[in-house]
């Protein structure tokens, strides 16, 4: 099928958006703004729109390049190096966990799988009780969820799920495990299945096609391929931000710098990068909290082989979920997990499958018949689940995430639950992503085998697509990096507006939690900076 799709970014550039590509800079630059926002993802995008609509001059600094629908060719070979942090191969320090995070205009929202959940009520209750976040109530946040759901077209997915998701629904139903339909941030979705490579039809309501274009239409400046180096701090104020322009390869410094002065600075580079920038800047951290409690929803993977075609590459990648295993015990007890299906694309599958050579090739030949399941462990609630720590290595942030017995216990239960569901759905065999596992040809064999497996880093495959924490918010200034409004403790004109502010993991895909909580923070900030009520983003249909 040959089609022509209008590219809203190309149209905006033609209309004169102020976008500066760091790789094209011939000389150093100095800019001024009311507010500088580092990062253009879920937190940065929402903030940029609200502040720009409120009449503030905004400069957005993005390390990734500006890519849009005319660049999105649905090919992993292009998408991973162009759109993801570290070519989609970002890892924890010990290389035990592979982390998918976006690195492009729109951040992870440009490449995520569109799953949209409100922050679970149980998570908010935990935040109120343990971290003094009194304003994190369902009632107080409901208007912000409503606002962002309208803004981004978030609604229950009406199209029947693809077979990859329906197998989760059918298998869980046979076992009596409840499932639900995932809500998605799409308008006019073509049900192609390539959300993870950038939406080629602009149906996904990512920051790339919603908030960032509105901010640019209202006078914002966007710097791309520009890495925020450090905030220059004098006393209790940030004076300016020093940035490094990147060369066309996107990884090497070009030698040019960009300096931005502003009244207020917002760090929204995502967990890992945000604490990294604050550490490079020697931001005050009197309670040793910066970079601590970084969470990943450590994720286990299971592949089921079916007689019928599953074609997991086609259709909305995530449309069915089961939170059954999040409800089986106390929130701070043994780790619960969310079950979802991942899209199955050749590189994603080939790199996730354990083993190599003939056995690996044999499984790959069944590509179209493979069903994938993910179990996202809810980290940060159990007393022994304190997450990971970001530190600097030659100036770049690196995450240490120790994997202890509490997590391995969850991993074992998660692999068991996924295998049980896959066999209940009719799988001929199940292959957990674990170097020593299976394939198992019956649930009885899987139950015995998975229970007896060794659980160890690298041997058990663990991945993550949700990085949270590291700049945690708390009611008490001694317990948090930022306050409940996202304002940085100890610096008057600095805020953090991204997933790094969460004091635990969310327990569900985090994008909508970031949108809503940051929308509230940005609106409070806009009012403080302008003395007038903040503008409200409108639900626009592109």
């Amino acid at each position, binding site marked *: 099928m040959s089609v022509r799709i209008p590219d809203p970014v190309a149209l905006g550039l033609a209309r004169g958006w102020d976008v500066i590509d760091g790789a094209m800079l011939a000389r150093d630059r100095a800019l001024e703004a009311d507010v500088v926002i580092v990062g253009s993802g879920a937190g940065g995008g929402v903030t940029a729109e609200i502040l720009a609509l409120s009449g503030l001059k905004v400069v957005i600094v993005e390390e990734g390049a500006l890519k849009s629908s005319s660049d999105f060719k649905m090919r*992993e070979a292009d998408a991973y190096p162009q759109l993801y942090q570290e*070519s989609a191969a970002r890892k924890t320090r010990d290389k035990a966990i592979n982390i998918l995070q976006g690195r492009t205009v729109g951040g992870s929202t440009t490449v995520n799988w569109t799953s949209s959940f409100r922050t679970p009520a149980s998570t908010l209750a935990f935040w109120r009780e343990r971290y003094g976040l009194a304003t994190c109530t369902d009632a107080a946040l409901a208007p912000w969820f409503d606002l962002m759901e309208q803004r981004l077209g978030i609604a229950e997915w009406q199209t029947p799920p693809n077979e990859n998701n329906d197998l989760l629904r059918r298998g869980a139903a046979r076992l009596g495990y409840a499932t639900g339909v995932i809500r998605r941030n799409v308008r006019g979705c073509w049900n192609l299945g390539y959300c993870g490579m950038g939406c080629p039809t602009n149906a996904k309501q990512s920051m790339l096609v919603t908030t960032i274009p509105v901010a640019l239409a209202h006078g914002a400046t966007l710097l791309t391929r520009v890495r925020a180096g450090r905030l220059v701090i004098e006393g209790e104020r940030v004076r300016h931000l020093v940035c490094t322009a990147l060369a066309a390869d996107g990884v090497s410094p070009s030698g040019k710098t960009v300096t931005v002065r502003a009244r207020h600075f917002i760090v929204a580079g995502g967990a890992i990068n945000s604490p990294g920038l604050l550490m490079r800047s020697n931001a005050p951290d009197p309670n040793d909290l910066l970079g601590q409690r970084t969470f990943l929803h450590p994720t286990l993977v299971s592949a089921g082989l079916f007689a019928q075609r599953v074609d997991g590459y086609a259709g909305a990648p995530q449309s069915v979920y089961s939170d059954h295993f999040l409800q089986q015990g106390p929130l701070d007890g043994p780790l619960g997990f969310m079950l979802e299906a991942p899209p199955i694309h050749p590189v994603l599958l080939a790199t996730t499958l354990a083993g190599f050579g003939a056995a690996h090739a044999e499984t790959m030949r069944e590509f179209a018949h493979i069903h994938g399941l993910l179990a996202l462990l809810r980290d940060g609630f159990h007393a022994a689940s304190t997450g990971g720590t970001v530190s600097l290595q030659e100036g770049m942030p690196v995450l240490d995430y120790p994997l202890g017995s509490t997590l391995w216990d969850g991993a074992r239960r998660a692999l068991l639950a996924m295998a049980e569901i896959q066999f209940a759905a009719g799988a001929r065999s199940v292959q957990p992503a674990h170097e020593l596992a299976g394939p198992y040809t019956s649930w009885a064999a899987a139950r015995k085998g998975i229970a007896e497996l060794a659980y160890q880093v690298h041997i058990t495959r663990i991945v993550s697509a949700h990085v949270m924490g590291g700049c945690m918010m708390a009611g008490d200034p001694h317990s948090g990096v930022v306050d409940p409004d996202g304002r940085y403790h100890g610096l008057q004109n600095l805020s953090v507006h991204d997933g790094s502010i969460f004091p635990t993991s969310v327990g569900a895909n985090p994008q909508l939690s970031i949108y809503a909580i940051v929308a509230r923070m940005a609106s409070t900030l806009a009012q403080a900076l302008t003395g007038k009520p903040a503008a409200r983003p409108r639900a626009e249909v592109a």
Partner: protein
Amino acid sequence: MKSRRTFLKAGVGAALALVLGGGIYRATRSAPVPHPLVLDADARAALGAIVPALLEGAWGPGNPTALGAIVDDVQHAILGLPLASQAELRDLFGLLALAPARRLLTGIGGTWSGASPAAVHAFLQGWRTSPLGRLRAAYAALHDLVLGAWYAAPASWEAIGYPGPQLEWGP
């Protein structure tokens, strides 16, 4: 595990070699400033043996895709990684090129081009489940680079029944 070689039980000695080897390699071959990793003849020779082992059953001699083209794709993938990761891979390929380190860590004493497929397979199996985390991580890096490069290429799709993207853009 079958074919666990005694060299993999060298434990502390092997870990030491990995650390020292990387340092020696850096000291003798690298400039101090982080810079992109361009695979040299030694690194390409190592991949020339490792790629067929990792892709056994999916790619072999006679396949329309040349081995060198797969190594080129691996090179391309490496250049998209952060410079710090490229430096780690430089250390890894340095070790694989250094005969004493290679013999200690992989059991392959001669040249890569002379290594038997069975020996390369045994070395990868050994690293995959090694007691040493560094070796397991190094195996994982090779696994992801090579299998990722191969299955990113449209030439690999027909054999696995992947039709590829079904949407093409007009002019």
